[in-house]
């Protein structure tokens, strides 16, 4: 381990507390000043709900009744942590408290028990060899790369993401058909106008070009409006769900790639539909378009 220049983050910094510990954390304003305070970090939801701030003293204990009996350890809130942007955290409504490893071990009464800890390597290339070393030497432990853990925990979200893609695809196909029908109808409404244009000597190419140009213009304006509405919608959705789940996660995104894809798709569909509709009409003799 030393040869790979690793550091045990948990040993030097903090370890995530278990739910049982969190549930038993109680606030107090009657902590004897003589007691040497330990330092802990709490998450901002906990701080907000219990009106705690940095420097407040609390009693922590594995016993839910500790505050009433005056037992437990006094701790000073040294930091208030923000919730990470991890989708898997959204549905969890318990609070999180971070303690020094020694404090946690004392609190749980299990001095030699650690469920998980993280190791940061000095270089990315070392991660695989460290993992191999741990897995070969440390009985009862299994080391994973952080990316593998992330992939494992985000599988549910990958499935959800695939659903989103499928829904998006269906929406796009349905919208495309709708757009095609609208454009066909709009061009069909102009049968007589187009017949008149042909009679006054406007060429087929000019008629098709004008229809396609108009369709492209409608598509650009439509996609710009759609993007704008989508962007406003994403603001609204993010504002609502960030409030509901108290997370900085973005629930709806309008990225430049999405904008480009929307505009390209809209113009492609619009121009295609306009071209098909225009070709249908210019291939029809003007007198037939006039209904004669």
């Amino acid at each position, binding site marked *: 381990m030393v040869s790979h220049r690793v550091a045990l983050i948990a040993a030097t910094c903090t370890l995530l507390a278990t739910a049982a510990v969190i549930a038993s954390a109680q606030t107090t304003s009657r902590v004897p000043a003589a007691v040497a305070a330990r330092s802990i970090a709490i998450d901002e939801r906990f701080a907000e709900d219990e009106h705690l701030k940095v420097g407040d003293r609390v009693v922590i204990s594995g016993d839910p009744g500790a505050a009433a009996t005056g037992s437990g350890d006094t701790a000073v809130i040294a930091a208030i942590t923000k919730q990470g942007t991890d989708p898997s955290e959204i549905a969890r409504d318990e609070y999180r408290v971070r303690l020094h490893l020694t404090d946690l071990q004392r609190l749980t009464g299990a001095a030699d028990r650690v469920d998980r800890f993280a190791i940061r390597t000095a270089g990315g290339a070392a991660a695989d060899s460290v993992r191999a070393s741990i897995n070969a030497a440390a009985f009862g432990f299994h080391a994973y790369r952080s990316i593998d853990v992330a992939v494992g925990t985000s599988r549910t979200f990958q499935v959800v993401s695939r659903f989103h893609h499928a829904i998006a695809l269906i929406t796009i196909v349905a919208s495309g058909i709708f757009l095609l029908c609208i454009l066909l109808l709009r061009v069909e409404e102009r049968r007589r106008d187009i017949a008149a244009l042909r*009679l006054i000597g*406007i060429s087929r190419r000019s008629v098709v070009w004008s229809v396609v140009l108009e369709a492209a213009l409608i598509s650009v304006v439509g996609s710009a409006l759609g993007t704008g509405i989508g962007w406003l919608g994403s603001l609204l959705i993010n504002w609502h769900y960030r409030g509901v789940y108290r997370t900085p996660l973005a629930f709806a995104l309008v990225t430049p790639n999405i904008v480009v894809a929307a505009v390209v798709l809209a113009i492609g569909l619009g121009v295609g539909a306009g071209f098909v509709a225009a070709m249908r009409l210019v291939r029809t003799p003007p007198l037939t378009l006039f209904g004669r």
Partner: protein
Amino acid sequence: MTASDTRAAPQGDSLSTAPVVAVRDAHRDYRMGQEVVRALRGVSLEIAPGDYVAIVGPSGCGKSTLLNLLGVVDRPTEGQVLIQGRDVGAMRDREATSFRLRNIGFVFQRFYLMAMLSARENVELPMAEAGMSAAARIARARELLDYVGLGARERHRPGQLSGGEQQRVAIARALANRPGLLLADEPTGELDAHTGAEIIGLFRRLNEDGTTVVVVTHDGELAAAARRTIHMRDGQIIPPT
């Protein structure tokens, strides 16, 4: 505007007495299922430059079919149609379209102006198609709108114009490329009597200024304004008595 502004551009034979239109024994049959409808049955006529002809007759007598032949929109089943000396029956679609653009002006009963374009832009349309420069076509469109009395309304869209004004814009559009022949299909059909009379007056003025005009109409007053009236029945021209 002078007379030379509205009539056809000078051509090689424009000063000769050669007819603008010569129809020789034209037949036009339509097949409707097993039945053959004979819309025209051996029609012959000539129209001289500067003439003003009204074609009248009951519905279904073949007058619109004849107008379609004169407008190079349709071809005779038999016979020959010559416009300004050219046999238009043999023209392919692209050639016929180009011929219509430069030689024939159309005025329709329902105007058929482009709703999103202004009056001036509507008049410019055939000139733009003919490849005229922007400056030249704007000047020509203004000239024509002045001629039909709409110089002050060049920026108005069709929806902002009355029926009579729209028809006047349509007439200006028809004259844009200085056609040798102006064809009108029931040009007063959608207008009230007063507005119709204005349009009749405009056609008369156009003709006096040198434009060859052919109108198909049920309107007795419009027909009466023409120099010559052709009566049709059952696909044939009724000889004058």
